[in-house]
C-alpha cells in the first residue's frame, strides 16, 4: 500500500514538473519576461572620446613665437610670458629678422605669417619665402620643433567687403602652408579652427576690425596651442 502510494505521489510530482517546464519554456512567456528586462537592442560601444591634455606653462620656456600684428596682440593679451617673441606689426615672411634667433636658446618655434602677404601677386613667392624662413630656422637650431600655424580667418563683414583680406584668400594660403609643412616635415597647427564659426568666419564678437583678436579669443588660440602640441609625458 505504501509502495503504491509513493509511486502515485512520484507520478504526480513528475507530471507537475512537466507542466511547469512546458509553461516556462513557451515562447510567448519567455518573450514577455524578456520584454520587461531586456532592451530592444544591445547598445553599441560609445565612440572613443579624444581628450587633449594641455601642456604646462613651463613647456614654453624654450619657445619662440614669430608673427605679425595678430601674434603681437596674442603676446600682450594671452601669450606665455616666458616665451620669446619675434613679432611686429606688418611682419612678412621676407622681413623676419631670423638671425636674432641665433642669440636665444630655443627648442620650439610657433609661426603665424601670411595675412600681410594676401595681396601678393604670386602666392608661390609667399610659399617660397616661407620655405626659406623655415630652412634658416632649421640651420640655427636643427633640433627645434617647428609649428606652422594656419592663418586665422577674418570676420564675415571683413571677408565680404575686402578684396584682399578675405577668407577665400586665407583658405587658399592655408592649403599652400599645409602642403609646405608636409614637404618640410614640420608640424601644421590648425589654430584657425578654434576661432572659426560654422560658416567659416571669425566669430563676430572676436574683433573690432574683423582681423585682430580680443583677449577672449587670444585665450582660445593659446588654449588650442597648449592642447595640440607634441610632447613627451
Amino acid at each position, binding site marked *: 500500500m505504501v509502495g503504491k502510494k509513493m509511486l502515485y505521489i512520484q507520478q504526480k510530482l513528475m507530471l507537475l514538473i512537466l507542466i511547469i517546464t512546458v509553461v516556462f519554456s513557451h515562447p510567448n512567456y519567455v518573450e514577455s519576461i524578456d520584454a520587461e528586462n531586456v532592451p530592444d537592442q544591445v547598445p553599441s560601444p560609445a565612440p572613443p572620446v579624444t581628450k587633449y591634455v594641455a601642456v604646462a606653462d613651463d613647456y614654453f620656456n624654450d619657445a619662440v613665437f614669430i608673427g605679425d*600684428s*595678430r601674434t*603681437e*596682440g596674442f*603676446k*600682450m*593679451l594671452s601669450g606665455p*610670458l616666458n616665451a620669446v617673441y619675434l613679432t*611686429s*606689426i*606688418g611682419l612678412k615672411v621676407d622681413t623676419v629678422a631670423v638671425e636674432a634667433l641665433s642669440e636665444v636658446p630655443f627648442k620650439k618655434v610657433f609661426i603665424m605669417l601670411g595675412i600681410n602677404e594676401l595681396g601678393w601677386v604670386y602666392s608661390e613667392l609667399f610659399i617660397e619665402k616661407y620655405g626659406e624662413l623655415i630652412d634658416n630656422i632649421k640651420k640655427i637650431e636643427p633640433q627645434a620643433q617647428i609649428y606652422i600655424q594656419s592663418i586665422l580667418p577674418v570676420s564675415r563683414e571683413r571677408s565680404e567687403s575686402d578684396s584682399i583680406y578675405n577668407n577665400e584668400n586665407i583658405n587658399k594660403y592655408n592649403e599652400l602652408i599645409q602642403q609646405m609643412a608636409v614637404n618640410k616635415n614640420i608640424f601644421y597647427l590648425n589654430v584657425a579652427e578654434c576661432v572659426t564659426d560654422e560658416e567659416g568666419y571669425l566669430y563676430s564678437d572676436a*574683433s*573690432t*576690425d574683423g*582681423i*585682430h*583678436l*580680443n*583677449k577672449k579669443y587670444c585665450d582660445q588660440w593659446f588654449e588650442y596651442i597648449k592642447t595640440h602640441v607634441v610632447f613627451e609625458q
Partner: protein
Amino acid sequence: MHKPRIIIVLILIAVMMIFTSCRNNDNDYDLNENNLDLNVSECADKLKENIPFEDTITAIDDKMGIAIYQLNTEDVAEQKVYVSTGATAEQIAVFEATDDNAAKRIETAVLQRITEQIESYQDYLPEEVPKLSDPFLMVTGKYVILCVSDHNEDVEVVLDKYYGF
C-alpha cells in the same frame, strides 16, 4: 565805527579762502609734486571708463607692461597698462616711478615706444599715426600718464575731474 567791522570781515573772508584752498575732500588730490599720492590703477581705470576708445582695450600683466615699454623694473613702483587688440594704436599707461629721475627715464622709454609705433603704423595703418604723433603724456613728480587716443581733451577733463590735474 564801521571800519574795524569791515576789517574783521575782510580778515574772516581771507581766512576762509585760505582754509578752503587747503581743505582736502575725497575728490581732491594735492597737486604739489612733492605730495602727490595717485592710485595708478584707479587712474588708468578712470581713463578707460571715460574715454571713447574705438578698439577694445585690455589691461595687461605688469611684466608685459615692463617689456613693451622696455623699462627697468627697478624704476617702476606701480603700473597699469591697457593695450588695444592691434586694430588701433590706442593705449593707456599709468606709472608710479620709484623717484622723479626714474619717472624721467620712464618718460623717455615711453616716447621711444611711441616713435617705434609711428614707424610701424606708417605703412600698416597710417590713420593711426595722428594719434601717436600727439599722445597725451604727462609727467608730474614720480607719475607718468600716457594715453593714446583721439580724445586728448577728454583725457584732460577726466584727470581734472577726478584728480584736479
